[in-house]
């Protein structure tokens, strides 16, 4: 996906660990392979 400035972003499942436990969220990170 590209935002309005043309940057390429990819959706990533990101792991989060808190004192209450571990879970994942979907975030955007710029494309490492760009």
């Amino acid at each position, binding site marked *: 996906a590209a935002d309005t*400035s043309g*940057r390429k*972003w990819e959706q*990533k499942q*990101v*792991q*989060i*660990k*808190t*004192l*209450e*436990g*571990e*879970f994942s*969220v*979907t*975030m*955007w*990170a*710029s*494309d*490492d392979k760009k």
Partner: protein
Amino acid sequence: VKTKAAVPLDSFDWGNYIGSGDLMGAPVSCFKHVPMGTSWDDITEGIRVEVLNSDSSLPMKVYWIASIIKLAGFKALLRYEGFDSDSGQDFWSNLCVPDIHAVGWCASGGKPLVPPKSIQHKVTNWKAFLVKRLTGAKTLPSDFSTKVQESMQFPFKKLMRVEVVDKAHLCRTRVALVQQVIGGRLRLVYEESQDGSDDFWCHMYSPLIHTIGWSRSIGHRFKRSDVAKKLDGQVDAPGQLFAKVKDVDQSGEWFKDGMKLEAIDPLNLSAICVATVRKVLADGYLMIGIDGSEAADGSDWFCYHGTSPSIFPAGFCEINSIELTPPRGYTKLPFRWFDYLRETSSVAAPVKLFNKDVPNHGFVPGMKLEAVDLMEPRLVCVATVTRIVHRLLRIHFDGWEDEYDQWVDCESPDLYPVGWCQLTGYQLQPPAMQASRD
């Protein structure tokens, strides 16, 4: 020639200086020669990072998520997740320091995220809170720290030999040895310096340094040193490490001896002066003299490439409302090129020979940055872009009078983003106080 003395002061803080208001730091993407300079476009306000939690009573290092509120060069104003619109605990951090990570880094290392003590009570279900806040948000690429480390590697090494302008006689070069490399800036010691104190600082992409043999190959004056042979460990820096200049066709219309132009005075970078092509060298290089201040033997000529952004056609200053410095001793003021060319029986260098590229540089007047004082090139100072003329920037050194301002090209390797000194370990000169100026 006005120069500054180094002011050792470690209390300067870019964060306090820029604050959360309208002051702007030039973005890292304006500086292609710095670490991360070509991969910073993706770093924007709103991005989430994992950062050290400084509000925790736990005995170990713990982290929490923060979002970028404002960017200034390598530095970011961060706000811990959970503070919402409360800016009271916002803090500045350099994004390239080891304690900043993409979201997900803590979990990959088994480290729990712990909310700051002062907001711990505000939320009963932090998991639900984070899922809501982070889903669909942006974070750094997972290899961000690796990219930073890779971009901090520089090919110049200690004891490499280069040819560099002789700072005492700009018309010639000398051999010098790399003694130190900090953030791509080289401390060069002239080969014959007995105690190693005769040095010169410049960036590895500076147009003032060249491979061994360059001067001879283009016909530039060179001070031969009496050092008979290279000592152990010394090696000529390979040609591919140096900045490339554009190839030019000198067989067609090209600069000729005696042609007049306007040039930034290398001894007073605040001034653009009336100048003359004194000698045409090979590979597109020119020896330039400032009219009215030339030594009879040419010892104050200096070398600019024909495509240099520091030379301009006659009339450039007038068109752009820049004050042109007339030749010293020239009394027929205001200076008019038409009259001067007639009086000196000379011609202006054709406009089409000059570099007219204007990159989409991204600088805006008012932007803060770290800039080398080119009259004292070991000093990197807190500075502001105050004027932009095509690709030319007027750099003001904060706290100093305007007479110390310098004209610098937008692609100069002597300009750095806010936070570059902190990142590379170079000493930053803070804004001058009245007392230190005195």
